[in-house]
């Protein structure tokens, strides 16, 4: 049987062959890993669907293949005569399956007339084809169940929503180092490969910037008390990172300003507020920055969040994050403070989220206190970008004011904890 690159989720359509984990002639059992593939976001092992003996490889290491491509031949017990021709013919195109496999899985030969008639004008059908959606799957809302242009666009919108993993990919900052030997078009020292994670980032950033009218404002947050409080906790052997406090404070603020924890559904003419607070945290790894998501911040204790953060960070550093780990975020933070030096930024929102907050360098500075005395305080700059289609500047400023209040006086945060 042919072992194919199946859909490995995240809406990915292609993957690079990292390495084979078996060699021809090997006996494998069902679920034994056969091939390691690398998508733009993650590494995955393709398991053996059944027991059998590994036959010919149909792809080579380093090759980029589309979903549906045959990776290797597996000789199963009952089909022991699967011998490949000595001359390997060019691999058959996978396009058939990709575009024209109908919902019942039958390849639509051009002469084959499907029983189900599509009630849509040729113009509407073309819109569906151009967006690579199967019009048969679209429920028509027009007269007599006719599929209208709007139905197609709405379906496309829904599909994008159902693929949050793709939407939620990370603001990776650092270039992923190519683990494979430089490909021929990559000239050492003068050009850098623009593909894989880098390309994915480019696409996401492009999409965000060209979709969302960004508005960014800056704020100074007095973190003196928080540092003090964390110091006290540390003495009690309770080490809770500052980021965890920021996340909790943000969650409390989001409850009051849920507009920043939402998705704009333009085609449905509505803004959908999301009740869950899943906050993505940018983590720098050797391969680049990745954004694991800590789920349900509003329902978890600071300690739980801290532990989860720690686990996710470790996973990120070991490149072990799974798709669920980086999926489902509703708000994103980026803590570049520890890197030092940065006073502010205009961060790009992770589409389709509404807002993102960056935490910058904390420095000691003289501050005029309420009693008009000058004191040395620790002050951190924050930058908040939000989608100006969804919210306005005043709301965003009120949001960061509230956040600032909780961080300035972390005890106030206690009052909000469940």
């Amino acid at each position, binding site marked *: 049987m042919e072992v194919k690159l199946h859909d490995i989720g995240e809406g990915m359509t292609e993957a690079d062959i990292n390495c084979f984990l078996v060699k021809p002639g090997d006996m494998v059992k069902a679920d034994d890993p056969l091939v390691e593939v690398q998508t733009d976001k993650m590494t995955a092992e393709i398991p053996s669907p059944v027991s059998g003996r590994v036959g010919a490889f149909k792809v080579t290491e380093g090759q980029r293949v589309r979903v549906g491509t045959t990776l290797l031949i597996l000789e199963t017990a009952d089909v022991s005569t699967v011998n490949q021709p000595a001359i390997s013919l060019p691999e058959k195109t996978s396009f058939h399956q990709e575009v024209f496999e109908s919902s019942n899985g039958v*390849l639509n030969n051009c002469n084959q007339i499907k029983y189900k008639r599509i009630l849509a004008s040729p113009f509407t059908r073309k819109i569906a084809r151009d967006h690579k959606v199967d019009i048969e799957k679209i429920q028509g809302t027009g007269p007599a169940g006719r599929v209208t242009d709007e139905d197609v666009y709405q379906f496309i919108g829904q599909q994008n929503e159902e693929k949050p993993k793709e939407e939620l990919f990370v603001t990776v900052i650092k270039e992923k180092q190519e683990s494979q030997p430089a490909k021929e078009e990559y000239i050492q020292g003068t050009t850098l490969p623009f593909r894989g994670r880098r390309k994915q980032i480019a696409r996401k950033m492009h999409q965000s910037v060209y979709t969302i009218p960004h508005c960014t404002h800056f704020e100074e947050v007095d973190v003196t008390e928080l540092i003090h409080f964390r110091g006290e906790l540390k003495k009690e052997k309770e080490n809770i990172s500052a980021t965890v406090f920021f996340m909790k404070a943000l969650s409390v603020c989001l409850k009051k300003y849920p507009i920043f924890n939402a998705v704009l559904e333009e085609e449905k003419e509505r803004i959908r507020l999301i009740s869950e607070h899943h906050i993505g945290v940018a983590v720098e790894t050797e391969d680049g920055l990745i954004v694991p998501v800590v789920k349900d911040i509003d329902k978890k204790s600071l300690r739980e969040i801290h532990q989860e953060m720690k686990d996710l960070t470790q996973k990120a550093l070991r490149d072990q994050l799974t798709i669920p780990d980086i999926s489902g975020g509703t708000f994103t933070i980026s803590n570049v403070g520890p890197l030092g030096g940065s006073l502010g930024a205009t961060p790009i929102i992770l589409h389709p989220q509404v807002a993102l907050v960056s935490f910058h360098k904390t420095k000691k500075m003289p501050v005029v206190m309420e009693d008009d005395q000058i004191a040395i305080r620790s002050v951190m700059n924050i930058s908040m970008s939000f989608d100006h289609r969804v919210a306005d500047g005043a709301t965003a400023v009120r949001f960061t004011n509230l956040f600032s209040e909780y961080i300035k006086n972390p005890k106030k945060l206690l009052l909000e904890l469940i």
Partner: protein
Amino acid sequence: MVVGEMAHERDLVIIGGGPGGYHAAIRASQLGQKVTLIEKEELGGICLNKGCIPSKLLTAQAKKHREILSAGNMGFEIGSLKINIDKQASNRKKVIDQLKKGIEALCQANKVELLKGSAYFLSTDRIGVENGDSFEVYRFKNAIIAAGAKPAVTPGISFDGKRIHNKWTVSFLDQIPGHLVVYGSDVNALEIAAAYRTLGSEVTLLLEKGKKDFNFDSSVTKELKRIFKKEKISILIDSEIQSTEINQEGVILTYKAGSDERTLTCTHLFISSKNKPNTYDIGADRLGVGMNSEGFIQADRQCRTSMPNIYAIGDITEGPPLALRAISQGKAAAEAIAGLSPEIDLRFMPKVVHTIPPIATVGLTEEEAAEQGLNIKIGHFPLMSNGYSALSGKKEGFIKVVSEVDTHLILGIHIMGEGALELISAGTIALEMAARDEDLTFPLYPHPSISEGVLEAAEMLNGKAIHIPPKPKNEKMKAKLL
């Protein structure tokens, strides 16, 4: 092939300059491809040189013949009518040459490189083109196979091109046959039978083995049989030609009707056989492209074959051997290569037959709709009730609309009668647009016109055609003209 041969580099190579090939070439060029079109014989392919165009010249000639003879009731005094075969042939040549020049000019205007020669695939990216002593090798990125098909050889029958003809030669007869036997039941068979009968031949239609009827909507079949009977075209069903013998007078053919063996003498025999694809002639089989058991190349709805850079269109691919399919496929293949998202959908492919009167149908027949378990209603309108049909003296035939009761959707339109060939496009568009009965009855129709028949057939779905009396007892009731 010589080691170290020089291959010319090309982007898109199209093998075959028939309707599929040249449409593909021009569309690809419109989309920015550099196109090389290879044709071993004549541009326009079988369609222009041997098929559609010559046969339509013949059916048009027959139609004109009929019109002249029936013009008497308009006050013309017609003497005897004589056909000048030489003039007929020179007109045919003139028409074909003119159309061919048109294609050539269009290809040049679109910067399509035309290569003359026989193409043969050397690998999935190289093709050899042989023209006389020269043999050149071209390396291509993409190829569209549009090499067509030829009439299959029928065992035991030798086509001499004088007495026994296939579909490539039957439109080029140098005389009107005394007695023509047509063997087959497809479009070609019906058209040739009707045309030569109208031009004066005695015609016998021999339906092939197992064939007892025509493949139309039952109303069309009934009307066609009535007209053939009236025209004195005799139909012999379920027959199988065993052997043929050519003598000075003509052909003696032995055929089996059921279990009886019979003979028939005629001056000319036309065998409307199936096609044999040219897959092997161009070495496409060696590439490993997917073929069916008869060698027709399998192509998907974007005309892709099983080879990623090789596309196939037209008669060489599986499916009905019709130029309209090749044309649609040609453009789709070019668009797919250019990265667009075309689609071939033959669901509402109109079928037309240039009989007298012509037949044109699209969509489901009454029987097909019933077979699918659909709850249908029929709107039937005889053209004798149509004003324009009456005044032009072409009252034969009808327009029939099949519709689904619950949804009001139009499922099929079947026309037999003057104007059918052009009117059917209204039906095709209605079906593609998912029209319902009101979508056909609401629009304004020119008056008087045959197209009003479409309106009244659609109105008949609800029994509301003006020119059909309530509860008709007899369809032959005379029309009351406005």
